[in-house]
């Protein structure tokens, strides 16, 4: 059974207008920067929130601050969206390191605990809000790179080539990370997927 990957990218980009936009921002054009923010905030917010919901706003703000400060380094060799994704990913990973968050690697979680409790989520079978909450909880337990690959591929709809560009890993590594993430999340959500 084939499941075509649905693209969830919110802002299809074309290089010409985006390059011009970035050149204006590099010259300090506030209107151009405001345009960039309006076009891409939702895209980055979705990444940041899935990565760290509690700090999502700060992460997005920091991402745009860096984008503004380094607009003159945008060469046009990649899409603006990829460039922004890359900044956001770096901000997320840096934030994680700086904050020294007490995260738990899902590999360290005992097998007996590696499932979301159906009792805790009585209505989750309907794939309602609780199911998505359980997904987010499982996502938060993934290793950073697997989590980010999963977010970019499954929730943002990026191609493997773009994930490779954003994260600086090979496409094969991206696939491997994705498969591992899905195995773990599937295990985490197993009780909710039985019916």
């Amino acid at each position, binding site marked *: 059974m*084939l499941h075509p990957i649905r693209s969830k990218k919110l802002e299809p980009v074309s290089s010409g207008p985006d390059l011009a936009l970035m050149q204006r921002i590099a010259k300090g054009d*506030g*209107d151009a920067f405001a345009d960039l923010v309006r076009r891409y*905030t939702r895209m980055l917010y979705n990444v940041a929130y899935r990565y760290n919901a509690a700090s999502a706003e700060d992460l997005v703000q920091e991402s*745009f*601050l860096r984008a503004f*400060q380094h607009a003159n380094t945008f060469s046009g060799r990649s899409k603006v969206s990829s460039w922004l994704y890359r900044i956001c990913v770096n901000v997320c990973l840096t934030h994680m390191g700086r904050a020294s968050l007490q995260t738990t690697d899902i590999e360290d979680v005992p097998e007996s605990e590696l499932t979301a409790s159906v009792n805790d989520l009585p209505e989750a079978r309907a794939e309602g809000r609780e199911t998505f909450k359980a997904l987010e909880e499982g996502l938060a337990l993934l290793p950073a790179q697997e989590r980010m690959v999963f977010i970019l591929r499954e929730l943002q709809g990026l191609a493997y080539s773009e994930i490779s560009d954003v994260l600086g890993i090979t496409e094969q590594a991206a696939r491997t990370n994705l498969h591992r993430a899905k195995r773990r999340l599937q295990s985490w*959500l197993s009780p909710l997927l039985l019916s």
Partner: protein
Amino acid sequence: MECSEALDFLYQSFDAQLTPTQQMLLDAHRRTCFACANTLTRAERFQALLLKVPQLAVPRGLEDRIIERVFAASHVTTKRGETLRTFVDAITNWRSFAFAAGTAAAVLALVLVSRNIFQPSAMTHVQAPPTITAAINGTLDVGSGSKTSQQSGAVTVAPGETIANSSEQPSTIAVSQHVAVTISGNTQIQVGQVQVDPQTGDPNVIAMRLVHGMVGVRESLGKNAGAIHVATDQATIVPTGTIFTVSASAGTTDVAVGEGSVAVYLPGETFGVPAGNQARISGGRHTISKLRPGTKFVH
């Protein structure tokens, strides 16, 4: 096919990466391996679930907050911005004004201060040359007390003197080659601290108290130009290469930005106002809104 391969094959099938032969092998394994059949079914349900994960909406006002923070941060993180902010922070607390004047020696700053921030007694703490030479385009009433006279063209302005525009038409006073202040009709300002560079004679600091009315400021950045600071009792506004107006009335400061942008410093808070927007500061709070189409700037 080994059981361990089945799930990987299924994941690849989600990406349409399986060859027809691999798909046949997967289907055959599924029919014969009950354990894998269940696992694969859950994997398919999981994949279907992912397709239903909604995209999150952006929290209300986040885009504005981003623009404000980035704009403000872009000023304070530059060397020049840090210098200016030091000055702004100090000048807001006028007891430290002497220190502020010292730190601002390299900065050309025009400070328009509304009610009660600059007291005459504070001015006596600062050693500064008493006058500046400016140029008036139009006609303004310049002087002190009863010794006020209409002036145009080159004029010498001393601390304590007032500059008023009692007509309906705005007039402009250029205080340096980079900074010009347009004084609207029925507006009065009082000259406070004046400090000039002893080497060049150019003004470094000009403090003015906006008594009432509205002024427009045009700042054009040049190699030797500094920034303009417009401080009121509610806020301090730091623009860069921009055109803006500021007006003060009891308890309220309005800032409208025509070109460029400005950073506004409140006690414990900083925000930016991009071109095409206006801010109202009152009671320690601020609101930002779009300028009405056709808004004209007095500069």
